[in-house]
């Protein structure tokens, strides 16, 4: 399957997500409707349990809504089978996780190459791309180190390299700065903005840190699974 063109939008229509915890039902999202334009740099803001991560998971095709519809360029993620969803993620979505989630037995470069490897990109092309990204991200020379030998900031940069290596149209980042000190977090946000500006990559990330939230072009606030505001700001 080729890349899906995000000419128009990512659309969330009346998304409700209910989890079962034992015999109890927990409503994570209630009738959430959102539209993301190409080139968005949007933050899903809100306290813990507000539904930020659930919303990101819906957009990334990692989870299915209990009701409602997630459309990505007319592809209904709620109805796609597992293989189609995997293919969709591989070619269109880059993930940056709060706890980096690098594969411990792979070196930094191999981690960054991972999605390219899944896409069957030739080895020399992958290495070329990753070396260039490492240079852009300021982590040149760390290619052969294992994740355990990298600092938190370095690991997060490798995770960013992995997320953007395959040139996805959307990068979803769940609390990307939560485990970083303020300087590193600041650098990381600058880097994300730079990628957004230069490549037009759509960023949707979650945070409850006001310093981070202020750096977004668009701030969507969630509380108890409901959207309470959706504001854009000029930076």
């Amino acid at each position, binding site marked *: 399957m080729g890349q899906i063109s995000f000419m128009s939008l990512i659309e969330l229509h009346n998304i409700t997500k209910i989890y079962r915890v034992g015999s109890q039902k927990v409503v994570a999202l209630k009738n959430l409707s959102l539209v993301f334009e190409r080139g968005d740099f949007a933050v899903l803001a809100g306290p813990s349990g507000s539904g930020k991560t659930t919303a990101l*998971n819906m957009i*990334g095709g*990692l*989870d299915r809504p209990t009701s409602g519809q997630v459309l990505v360029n007319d592809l209904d993620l709620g109805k796609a089978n*597992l*293989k189609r969803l*995997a*293919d969709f*993620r*591989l*070619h269109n*979505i880059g*993930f940056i*996780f709060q706890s980096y*989630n690098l*594969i*411990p*037995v*792979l070196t930094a470069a191999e981690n960054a190459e*991972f*999605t390219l*490897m*899944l*896409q069957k990109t030739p*080895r020399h092309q992958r290495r070329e791309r990753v070396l260039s990204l490492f240079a852009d991200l300021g982590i040149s020379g760390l290619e052969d180190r294992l994740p355990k030998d990298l600092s938190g900031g370095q690991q997060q940069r490798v995770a960013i390299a*992995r997320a953007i290596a395959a040139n996805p149209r959307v990068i979803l980042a769940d609390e990307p700065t939560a485990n970083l000190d303020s300087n590193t977090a600041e650098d990381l946000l600058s880097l994300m903005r730079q990628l957004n500006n230069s490549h037009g990559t759509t960023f949707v990330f979650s945070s409850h840190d006001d310093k981070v939230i202020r750096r977004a072009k668009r701030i969507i606030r969630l509380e108890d699974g409901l959207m309470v505001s959706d504001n854009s700001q000029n930076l």
Partner: protein
Amino acid sequence: MEKVSLAWRNLWRNRRRTIITLAAISFSIMLVQAFHNLSFGVYESMVDSGVRAGSGHIAIYHTGYLNTRDETLSFPVASLPEVIEQIPGVVQALPRIYLPALAQTSRESRGVVLIGVEPKKERLTNPFLQNLSDQSMIRKSNSRDAIIGQRLLQELQIKPGQKFVVTAQHRDGSLHSELLRVRGIINTGMKDIDSSLILIGSQRAAMLSGHIGNVHELAIVLKSAWLDRQVFPEIAKRLVNHPNVEAVNWEQAMPNLANAIKLDYASQKFIFLIILLIVTIGVINTMLMSVMERMREFGVILALGSTPVKLGGLILLEALILGCIAALLGSFLGCLATWYLATVGIDLETFMPETLEFGGVVFDTVLRANWDIAWMAQIAIYVIGLTVFAALYPAVKAGRISPMEGMRHT
């Protein structure tokens, strides 16, 4: 290639666990290979002892003799031994006459089995005769010399050099007697044989029974037991002009030995099965632990765009590598153990001073292995397959998780 590299590195995440699992699989392969080879060697030695002292690798009988042991069912031997000895792979063709008889001395009488043999030819093959001195051997085929079982000697209360009489039924139905002299004593270690066996020259036996020019059995000894399938059709071709004569292999001629070996090997196979079952459980445990520890990582891999099938394939690849290393290591250890057992062997004499009898055959107290390379390779490949099979459940389990479930795993 990268998948192999990834699988290899995953395998060594928990070095100690992988080494323990590898050691368990390798040790099992070594045990199964070494004990199979030991059995293979012991069975071959038993078959060899059995056929040399018994019916040969292939035996020719008058139709019906094997089942009835009716001494009237003899067949003309003529030049058949010489013809058969021309067949490649045949060492000897030994004509024999079997007669139930009564042995008598002035003090005792006993029922015996009188076997008429070609003394010189028989001695070349029969391990018990090979142990006798020249002075104890039957001198001529028509002489009155007899070699008798040690227990029979005691029971008849005679000594070497003394005379005794045997009486047997002649072909015409009358009873005929012959005076024989004890020339040699045979001690096979088997009570039944040692208390009933008398060997005499074939011509003397023919004269006693009237089976002139006839024999009851033509025992054919081959260079190797494994040549019987090749030689058997050749013998059958040469029997076309001999009506009422049939060739049988040693398994048919000596069903006691064949069945004893089959039974023994069946019980060994059961033990092998248990060993391999334990290996399978060990591999399932290792792979399952390895999968459970990496659930979060699998969630990430699936989130990045891998399919469940590819993820399951990675687990199976890890198992395949584990199986291949274990097969190589285990086979190496199996070769070492077989080499030791083939060259040094296990001497049971210190544990069992008595003669070892199995399936009606006495065999060497030093058990030695024999190489069965094809079987060793087969078991190594089988264990590789078993290891991959054991990883199926963990692989399916890994492939079935959703990315979210995986990433929530702690």
